[in-house]
């Protein structure tokens, strides 16, 4: 193969990525256009009505944006008390030991479980527990979905945070120990501040995962098209309304669902970009 042909071939292959991304944005925008045009962009974002009675169709994204934000925020909240200890266990306390590699295998496997199986487990195991504890009568809802979502994002937050915790120079830690600090004090006052921006960015990426998670949320959130009034009530996320209704929708409803898809795409894209840029900065520092 000549060098020229090789270079062209490589370039064409690399071109595939921008073509696909451009295609995604073009297809989403052009198919969402109908909904935005019909309801008005701002109105679509802020309307909480979702009704498909013929002739009086009214679609708004607010309940689903709220549902997505609530599940993501709660999942993040529930995930931190576990992912941070895992990161400290693997990256600091037992760095490089056999137990640490066992724990990272455990989190790797957690990351590998398909989301539909998380959904099943949530539905058949967690939901009855929620009901038995009288937290909510139907068992499914924002809270149930967030709990399972939290488990799903632990591996992402933990493994990346551990990487940054590991990178804290030994010089600094020994310097702090030599001043009489305990390990807990070294972690709080040296490791966390130094690894802070890296740890923060790993949670941004975990948020990016939680925002778009589909099957688990669809199976556990309760699938009602209203703005959730509390964390125990049912609702729908942007991803779950699409999963639920895309197959049966046409015309304006289809366009509205695609519009929701576009919004979801933009939110995750922005969050992921912020996370990636922060990680790059944290790695250089």
């Amino acid at each position, binding site marked *: *193969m*000549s*060098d020229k042909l*090789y270079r062209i071939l*490589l*370039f064409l*292959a*690399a071109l*595939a*990525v921008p073509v*696909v*991304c451009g*295609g995604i944005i073009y*297809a*989403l925008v052009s198919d969402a256009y109908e909904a935005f045009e019909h309801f008005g962009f701002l109105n679509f974002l802020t309307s909480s009505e979702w009704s498909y009675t013929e002739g009086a169709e009214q679609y708004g994204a607010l309940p689903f944006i709220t549902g997505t934000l609530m599940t993501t925020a709660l999942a993040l909240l529930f995930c931190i*008390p*576990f*992912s*941070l*200890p*895992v990161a*400290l*266990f*693997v990256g600091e*306390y037992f760095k490089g030991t056999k137990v640490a590699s066992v*724990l990272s*295998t*455990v989190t*790797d*496997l*957690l990351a*590998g479980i*398909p*989301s*539909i*199986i*998380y959904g*099943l*487990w949530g539905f058949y195991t967690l939901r009855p527990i929620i009901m038995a504890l009288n937290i909510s009568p139907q068992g499914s809802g924002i809270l149930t979905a967030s709990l399972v979502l939290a*488990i799903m994002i*632990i591996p992402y937050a*933990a493994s990346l945070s551990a990487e940054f915790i590991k990178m804290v120079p030994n010089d600094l830690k020994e310097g702090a120990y030599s001043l009489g600090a*305990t*390990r*807990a*004090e070294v972690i709080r006052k040296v490791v966390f501040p130094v690894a802070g921006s890296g740890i923060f960015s790993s949670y941004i990426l975990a948020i990016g995962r939680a925002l*778009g*998670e*589909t*099957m688990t949320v669809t199976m556990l959130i309760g699938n009602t098209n209203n703005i959730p009034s509390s964390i125990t009530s049912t609702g729908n996320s942007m*991803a779950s309304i699409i*999963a639920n209704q*895309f*197959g049966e929708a046409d015309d304006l409803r289809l366009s509205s669902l695609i519009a929701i*898809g576009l919004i979801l795409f933009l939110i*995750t*894209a922005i969050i*992921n*970009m912020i996370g*990636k840029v922060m990680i790059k900065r944290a790695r250089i520092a």
Partner: protein
Amino acid sequence: MNVTTKHRLAKDKLMLWGVCLFAALTAVPLIAILGEVLLRGYDQLSWSFFTQPTPTAYKAMKAIEAGEPIPGGIANGIIGTMLMLGMAVVVAVPLGILCGAYLSEHSKDRFAQVVSYLTDLLQGTPSVIIGIITYIWVVVPMKGYSAIAGSVALCIMMLPLIIRSTEETLKILPASLKEAGLALGGNKARVMMKVQLPAAFGGIFTGVLLAISRVIGETAPLMFTALGCSFIRFAVDKPISAVPLLIWEFFNDPNLQELIWGASLFLLLFVLMLNLTAKYLAKKWNQ
């Protein structure tokens, strides 16, 4: 030892035990999920489970009424998954490797940086959106759901994973390898094909295994593309089933619920085995 020292040491101990406790607790969901799927699914696994297609809801209902086990299995799903995965791999692997090679060779190039960012963008795109896109791109023009559409969705999801693993593996190869190849008079193409890619084989192969394990359990992007089908079929232009799609169907159909756990057990074991194999190979090849 004075009081404050005691107090500080107690806090230190508390932190250690807290970290150990909460870190250990993350193993609980893994064990609980594995345990539940194993316990509820293992007695459904039989020869016919892998060779028979899914029963209709009516047949299943009759069997339940008669107090018999539900007949049939998930063969249609396994075949659909393999077929779509095969088509996706055939396109995504060579394309991803070439693109990864481009990124590793031109890492300071402006265009390569854009491609690199877009690869991240693609990797972070929620799978349900990949489903929508493939619906718009493939299902609408072809006027119907099909195995091709499903494989396009899987292919788009695999692509960034393969690009990244190829790029990263090529980047950590010693520069001397490439230079030695070039010094012997090979052109860039030859050096890439004969020296660099073979040397990177282990990393790329691991990346492909991980990419497969990541997409094989995907449900959302297949719902609006492959749709599902209750019998065994090899046509690529017709709707087809997949194992995760079957689980979703069983979940939604009260008559078929008995089959959920066998199908989940199969999928879970398959995915986790792929994961562990990839991790093992990565470790072995790194030494």
